[in-house]
């Protein structure tokens, strides 16, 4: 339910902020929500990326015709990730398996940490893109890849030292 609520929030923002292709945005959002709900209900994890794609497509359609970079895209991106993670958790969850409270707390903390770091990276990315719009999307994408790679290397080193 939480996954659906998070995705619904992101979709609501997409539709509310949509321009002339608002109906297309709404359709993408509804399809995304339906796919996610179906995937959770049927315990079918392959629907999750399609739900994210549909919702992301709806957001992209809503941005059609707007030149300014949307700062809320950072939040929408993290919301899509959270929805995907929560839906995966829901599908994986087996009531017969007793989960220790410490493991549950750590999993929640991991998810929260991931969302926080992703939010930070996104704000940095969008801030950079807004300041140097002339640098282009290619440079932004390369920057994201480099930032993500750096985070991965740091985590790997931290893991091997522990």
């Amino acid at each position: 339910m939480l996954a659906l609520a998070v995705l619904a929030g992101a979709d609501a923002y997409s539709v509310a902020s949509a321009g002339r292709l608002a109906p297309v945005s709404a359709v993408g959002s509804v399809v995304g929500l339906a796919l996610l709900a179906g995937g959770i209900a049927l315990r079918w994890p392959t629907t999750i990326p399609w739900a994210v794609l549909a919702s992301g497509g709806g957001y992209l359609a809503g941005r059609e015709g707007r030149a300014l970079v949307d700062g809320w895209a950072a939040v929408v991106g993290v919301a899509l990730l959270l929805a995907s993670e929560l839906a995966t958790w829901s599908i994986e969850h087996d009531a017969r398996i007793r989960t220790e409270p410490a493991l549950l707390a750590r999993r929640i903390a991991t998810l929260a940490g991931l969302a926080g770091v992703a939010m930070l990276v996104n704000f940095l990315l969008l801030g950079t893109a807004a300041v140097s719009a002339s640098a282009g999307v290619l440079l932004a994408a390369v920057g994201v890849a480099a930032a993500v790679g750096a985070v991965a290397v740091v985590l790997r080193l931290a893991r091997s030292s522990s």
Partner: protein
Amino acid sequence: MTRYASPKLASYAGLSAVGLLTALVFARPELVALTAPFLLALAAGLALATPPRLEVSVELDEERALEGDEVRTTVVLAASSPVDRLDLYLRLPQGVELAEGRNPVALRLAAGERRELEFTLLAARWGGHVLGPAYVRARDPLGFLVWERAAPTRPELRTYPREDVLRRILQPRETQVFSGNEVSRHKGEGIEFADIRLWAAGDPLKRVNWRASARRGELWVNESHPERNTDVILFVDSFAEARRGGTSTLDLAIRATSTLADAYVRRRDRVGLISFGGILRWLVPGMGVVQLYRVVDALLDTQVVLSYYWKEIDIIPRRTLPPNALVIALSPLLDPRSVGALLDLRARGYDLAVIDVSPVPFTARPAGGLDAVAYDIWTLRRDALRHRLQRAGVAVVEWRDDEPLQAILEEVRAFRRYARHARV
């Protein structure tokens, strides 16, 4: 450990690739922002994923238990590398139930941590139960990679059938040569008075019956019945069984056989076992507690195995069926091969008693129609079969689940007493 990627790995990689390409095509930085969290999760997950180094073992506090006993089991987990998410499932065989503890369980292990998970198991049914394997499934913190393995240790819990208390058991008609608790019908050295006879050279003085000698004017001596042991062969029919829920005719037969073996071994009788079914097992008669354990251990391995092979009594080794032995058969009388073997035993002169472990309570009578007629014919045929065995001189008693074994044995005793009188 077997490693495989979860579906999430492929989907996040695909989403990242599609998102970044679309961002380039449409020249929208927002799409990079939508994609970056997935890329970050992917990179972080793979960076944190290290193959778990984990030792798993299963230990049993006791390897032998009685039906209904509780046994403590410990699953020991020793991790030499951190395991962020670990699912553990100890597979329990049929006949063993979880009484206390949670199975399966999800937990986390730090590097160098050793955990002992304790379960209390209920030995619900007799048999040799192999526990496990204990399956473990480890995941990286974000669940992109999964490692699975099964614990190599699989301890065996041998659950012995719970025995009834018998006050009186069936007495064989013939005794053997070793001393025991059964008063022989023959005359010899013993305590029980049998008769008096004229003195003969070699008779000890202490056996002279002075009162009879004084009355008759010549020496008369007392004769007595010696106390001898007997040979008892327990014949378990494992060709077929009737089962309902957790109980079957074979369960009842095994418990009764175990009870009888215990009772006869206590009387210093020699006890042997024949498990006549798809798999033929036998145990040559023997005495003592060791023999009792042999019998019960052999019973634990008894099971119904489907077989179309026609077996006759000839395939049983001769030493397993000594002359003058009492054969007590526990059979649901469902398979013609076992019925044929029992009639064959009787034809060869063995002292035979059959406890018919009735399959009737395990089957519900249909409400009506042809099925009900067929059911009634089946029960009538069973009556006819018992009658046929009785006409052959075999003591047959039908045993239903709710009746105590002692009552059934008393019925057999009564039949044998009556049959003996009729023969005289």
